[in-house]
């Protein structure tokens, strides 16, 4: 007698836990061949708000950690992902129908990207900060600080795409709420399991699955969100509406742009969501 496999219920990732959508809704996800794979949670406005609350609660602790420590946590995500690479390769092949070689490249790139950002944690301040030679007896320096809670619409690629938009945001001390790839949400939730077991404090990354046009407006207009990354928004009119909503509390906005995910990223994925704080103090005896 053959054994029936245990299927996974893919839920949301909020505050370090994996709740179902409070709305009780789900949507059907098919694999690359069009066969039923799973019913993913369809996040609601309330889920988005819960996620923002969790991200805000996590911000003080996460941004207050040393950059060295944050770097190690991001590195640990890479470590845990490396250990589960077979699972991710299989999921990518099943969800997108890619070749084994392509799936491997994608997983490799995701792991390497995490390692790359891990190394930035304690260097970004040195590269973007400054000692300012003001014309007077003052000690004056500028250093970057995270903006706060960032809402992110992730690109279609559920693993490398998610890593590429989330890692720069959290490496610099922000926390985030990310809407996973709408067509391929499941692998992003599996990645959330990696994050949940990587010493990443609950709430630093919150992953919602569901409809971007439905959830994103609530995040774009949320007054406790400080930044908005529209990378994964493919509809220009929706992107414009979200940018308009973001203006209400002057969120830092990253507009959608085509990007080669395999290329080395530019620093602006980090700097868009960094503030510069300049501190003055008199000098003298």
């Amino acid at each position, binding site marked *: 007698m053959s054994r029936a496999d245990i299927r996974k219920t893919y839920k949301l990732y909020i505050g370090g836990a994996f709740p179902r959508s409070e709305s009780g809704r789900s949507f059907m996800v098919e694999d690359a061949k069009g066969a039923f794979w799973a019913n993913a949670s369809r996040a609601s406005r309330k889920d988005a708000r819960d996620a923002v609350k969790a991200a805000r609660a996590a911000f003080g602790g996460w941004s207050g950690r040393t950059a060295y420590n944050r770097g190690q946590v991001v590195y640990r995500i890479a470590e845990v992902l490396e250990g589960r690479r077979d699972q991710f390769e299989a999921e990518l092949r099943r969800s997108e129908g890619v070749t084994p070689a392509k799936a491997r490249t994608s997983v490799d790139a995701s792991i390497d990207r995490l390692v790359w950002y891990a190394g930035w944690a304690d260097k970004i301040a040195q590269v973007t900060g400054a000692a300012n030679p003001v*014309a007077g007896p003052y000690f004056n320096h500028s250093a970057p600080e995270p903006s706060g809670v960032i809402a992110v619409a992730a690109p279609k690629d559920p693993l490398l795409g998610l890593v590429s938009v989330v890692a720069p945001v959290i490496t610099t001390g922000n926390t985030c709420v990310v809407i996973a790839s709408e067509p391929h949400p499941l692998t992003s939730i599996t990645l959330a399991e990696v994050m949940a077991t990587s010493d990443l404090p609950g709430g630093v990354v919150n992953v919602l699955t569901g409809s971007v046009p439905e959830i994103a407006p609530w995040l774009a207009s949320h007054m406790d969100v400080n930044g908005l990354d529209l990378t994964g928004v493919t509809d*220009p009119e929706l*992107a414009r509406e979200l940018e308009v909503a973001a203006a209400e509390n002057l969120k830092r906005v990253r507009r959608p742009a085509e990007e080669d995910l395999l290329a080395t990223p*530019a620093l602006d994925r980090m700097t868009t969501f960094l503030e510069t704080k300049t501190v003055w103090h008199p000098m003298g005896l």
Partner: protein
Amino acid sequence: MADAEVPQRTRSRTDPATAFTYAPAPESRAIVDLRSSYGLFIDGVFVDGSGSGFKTINPATEEVLAQVAEATEADVDRAVRAARKAFRSWSRMKGSERGKYLFRIARIIQERARELAVLESLDNGKPIRESRDVDVPTVAAHFFYYAGWADKLEFALPEGRNGGGDPRPLGVAGQVIPWNFPLLMLAWKIAPALACGNTVVLKPAETTPLTALLFAEICQQADLPPGVVNIVTGAGETGRAVVGHPDVDKVAFTGSTEVGRAIARSVAGTSKKVTLELGGKAANIVFDDAPIDQAVEGIVNGIFFNQGHVCCAGSRLLVQESIAEDVLHRLKRRMKTLRVGDPLDKNTDIGAINSAEQLTRIRELSEIGEQEGAGRWSPACDLPDRGFWFPPTIFTGVSQAHRIAREEIFGPVLSVITFRTPKEAVEKANNTPYGLSAGIWSDKGSRILWVASQLRAGVVWSNTFNRFDPASPFGGYKESGYGREGGRHGLEGYLR
């Protein structure tokens, strides 16, 4: 020293410290050659505007200074086209050559410093002491600082904005500036834009257009290529035309958060880059171990400098409860020595409120402060009969919920709030949608550094306040806007 029981009126006559009277020391306005009317500065020449025009007045006397052209959408379009045409050669010019023009401008500003200072005080109402000693020297310093960047841009963004390390200008910058520091805000906008190879269309505030038009003459004296700098005067409609022009690549705005929001909305879905320097409600935190007399000077400078028309003004005084009485006593004593009056008098500390409209807003919010139960106090001072005046004012017994503690008043009005622990001070300081600046007064270095790290503000002044320097980045967190002006960071908003 003097005791507080003596009634003010008597005291001002008997206390030697205040009985001392100053002879009038007016600066001559003869150095300024005011024209009766001014046009727009487009493509290197002054031209008529097609709008109906408006008058700019001296807020200290309500005297009409000049008739100024109003730029319509068509005029703005003409200016943007001139800037676009000039961009082709200006952006390709060697950085070292561009830098020379900026150095020339810096030098001419120094040469004509007195004229600029007098005109600024006439049009804006700010004390000549500030326009002469702060504004104009800092304006020249900005052009000098950014002139030197023009041929070093590859070192400005060594990380490469887009990974390339080959920084390039954005194109035509549309810039809209406020009335509180007319010439200084012009310098903050124009100097980095030009250094990076952009060309500009700048709209000064409608109440203070004159120094921008004098700056246009300076551009002519410097032989700046036509179209590199264009100045269009007008009010909100003109500003909207500048910001909304489809051929503007970059919008830079300094002003209210409300207008900043509207601009952020209007550029949504376009490829325009934006930087915004918006409002603030800065906390000036005084701890019990602070050098109190220095702190009092800092409080006065923080809120009464430029009549409090400063986006980063220290408009919320957070004072530790144990020393609140002492600080308030000394603050009031110091405020009694402030001289309010003729901006052109060299002994004046506090000049005129910039406009009737602004005066109305300050009065309204102050009345609301009283209605909500805060205690209002101003030193006795004789205000001139004509012009727009408001005495230096403090409110005590202010709570976090009071409107005067939440809204930007943009006038010489200070709200005093107390706290007990550093943690409470940080919580109260951060309890605002704004995040532009903050002040800390304490003798304890470790405490200063901890508090500075906890404050959500773009500029933190410790044991000093309201310091500016072209080499120092300035800008806000949260609803105080985005982007930085000044320093290497100030170039980022003008490069791709």
